[in-house]
């Protein structure tokens, strides 16, 4: 009898829970989501979306940290034209469908003024049309796909960084400068869009710059495979002069852990185009003489004396105990870009708080200062361009991890396609 009554009460409880969901939703009833507010608002509410769980947390948390740090700094200094910024954080894990639902919730339920977010290219591609539908300013801060602005046009969507082609092209140029007599190349990339696109751009650029180069192996392990014994054996048998990899997260750490003792990194010149983010994780186990890219020029020792850069690196390190990595810089570029656009629009409007259209107009073609002390440019296609750096790993007693030696900086114009030209067409158009 007791169990029966317990069951009944448990049933009632669950029924109430289910009802609470529906009723709670109904109570969130409100007016139209996009009212134009010309009077200065009490605060600027920004939805900030990055991975807080799952394998991409290694990017998500450092970028969330940067947002937290920078927004607090801006608010201390008076916010944007006197308006304080209020961030609302959300988890990017869960796939494209969840992100579309979450975007709607942020906009319609939380009533954010704009959204900054998205590390995964699939999420960027899925959310962009929804941003258009809801007419909400959305700043993509980290995803790398070149498809987004090359295949479609958006009014409300911006990306405050360069796309994937930058790393691949810079890597090819850097390889040819440190190893001009390269004869054979191989690639080991994760079998999904990012890995495929990265290798395609790198291979194209290499063959264009040095047509006698031969591709001896193209390996496609599964994303998150973790175990690369057979791939490493294949690369050890093929003995290419140069190995290209766009691995990231745990996979890049696995490759270094398993490859280093087996001599992979001493046999070939290995290029890790996203390698900057794991140097602090791997520490002294990182082999020397490996080419490292930073998805732009995001490296804490680059231009280290610039006051803006120094403030960021020191402030971030003091608070989180680590140096910022490239996703942190990308987040900085996004938040700073929003501030710059709003301030530019206010100036144009004679000090009045800008409407959404004014803010968007100001965002197009804007130039503003970001770490490591350079100008960030958002072009007319809503996409940013950046310079890139490449360097070779080297251990320094001052740091508990490898730092970059023989660093080269590639100006933005050298590693980003001209406005309106598609990436692959641009590489194909290079003159030998």
């Amino acid at each position: 009898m007791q169990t029966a009554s317990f069951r009944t009460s448990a049933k009632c409880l669950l029924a109430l829970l289910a009802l609470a969901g529906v009723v709670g939703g109904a109570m969130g009833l409100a007016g139209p989501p996009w009212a134009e507010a010309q009077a200065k608002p009490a605060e600027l509410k920004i939805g900030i979306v990055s991975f807080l769980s799952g394998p991409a947390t290694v990017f998500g948390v450092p970028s969330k940290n940067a947002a937290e740090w920078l927004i607090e700094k801006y608010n201390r200094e008076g916010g944007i034209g006197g308006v304080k910024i209020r961030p609302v954080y959300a988890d990017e894990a869960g796939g494209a469908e969840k992100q579309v639902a979450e975007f709607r919730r942020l906009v319609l339920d939380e009533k954010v003024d704009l959204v900054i977010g998205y590390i995964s290219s699939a999420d960027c591609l899925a959310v962009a049309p929804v941003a258009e539908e809801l007419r909400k300013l959305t700043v993509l801060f980290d995803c790398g796909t070149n498809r987004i602005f090359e295949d479609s046009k958006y009014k409300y969507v911006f990306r405050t960084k360069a796309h994937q082609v930058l790393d691949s092209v810079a890597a090819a140029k850097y390889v040819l400068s440190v190893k001009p007599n390269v004869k054979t190349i191989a690639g080991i990339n994760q079998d999904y869009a990012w890995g495929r696109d990265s290798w395609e751009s790198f291979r194209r650029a290499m063959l264009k710059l040095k047509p006698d180069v031969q591709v001896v192996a193209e390996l496609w392990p599964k994303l998150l495979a973790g175990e690369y014994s057979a791939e490493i054996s294949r690369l050890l048998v093929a003995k290419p002069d140069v190995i290209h990899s766009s691995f990231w997260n745990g996979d890049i750490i696995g490759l270094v852990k398993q490859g280093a003792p087996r001599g992979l990194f001493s046999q070939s010149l290995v290029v890790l185009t996203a390698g900057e983010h794991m140097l602090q994780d791997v520490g002294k186990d990182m082999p020397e003489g490996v080419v490292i890219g930073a998805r732009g020029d995001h490296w804490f020792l680059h231009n280290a004396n610039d006051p803006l850069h120094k403030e960021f690196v020191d402030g971030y390190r003091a608070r989180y105990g680590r140096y910022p990595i490239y996703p942190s810089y990308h987040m900085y570029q996004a938040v700073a870009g929003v501030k710059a656009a709003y301030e530019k629009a206010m100036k144009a409007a004679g000090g009045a708080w800008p409407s959404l259209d004014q803010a968007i107009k100001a965002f197009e073609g804007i130039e503003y200062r970001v770490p490591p002390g350079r100008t960030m440019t958002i072009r007319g296609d809503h996409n940013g361009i950046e310079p890139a750096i490449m360097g070779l790993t080297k251990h320094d007693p001052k740091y508990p991890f490898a730092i970059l030696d023989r660093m080269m900086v590639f100006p933005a114009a050298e590693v980003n396609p001209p406005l309106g030209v598609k990436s692959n067409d641009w590489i194909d158009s290079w003159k030998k």
Partner: protein
Amino acid sequence: MTVAVVILLDGVLYAAVLFLVAAGLTLVYGVMRILNIAHGSLYALGAYAGTSLVLVYLKTGGPAPLMYLALLAGAVVAGAIAGPLVERLLLRPIYGREEVVQLLVTYSLFLILEDVMKLLWGVDPYYVAKPYAFLGTVTIAGVRYAWYQLLLIAVALATGVLVSLAIRGTRLGRMIVAVTADREISATLGINVGRVYTLAFTAGAILAGLGGALVAPLISVAPGISVEAIVLAFAVVVIGGLGSLEGAALGALIVGITRAAAVQLFPEIELATVYLIMVAVLLFRPRGLFGEWETRRI
């Protein structure tokens, strides 16, 4: 020639990893007829516990070879705690229920353990490379291999032999066989079926944990490793035949060698090899290579 040797060796190396991941899953199914979807989470639990213990141990500055003991101890402790807890609290109430209910209970457990591990260990990757690099390397057929990889083959072999000896040669093992064959008759013969179940599930959890701990020095231990592990373990066990330890070993070898051959000869299909083998085997022997045919009950 070199390529053939390398394929074989890489295949066996990968098979060792696969077998360690899958052995616990097939053991639990064999005894309890429960397909444990949370097996991957127990694997991750072992990886986290083993890695943490090694990191703690390395900080104390003790003699390096003992870190392998720390690695194993972490996994065993994790399995020995989680195993009985899960069996007593979650599985016991549902033994009489349908298969789908049992699958869903372990699926819920998988969801819960994902977050429990996040709460215990955070989201930053755990990194320990020393156990892998410490033993040095050996050159076979012109290719350098880490001794640790070869050690994994030995451990996988030893695990397989020990578990099957324990099942065939000990009193407990024979009780397990009896319970597997017929639960009710075993109970009338005076076997404490509940205790056998607890022990079998704990053994499975420890095996899963060991798999995780032994693979941990190769990989970066971070959220998300359980989902990958469970798919691989399922594939291997389904190919070999659910509940059969020999089957798991054979399944691991087939998948391992095929994947190694794909990497050397036709890397485009690497991602799909496991699934393709699984479907191919299921088409011709739907109960797996070592699976038994059940009689239909009227």
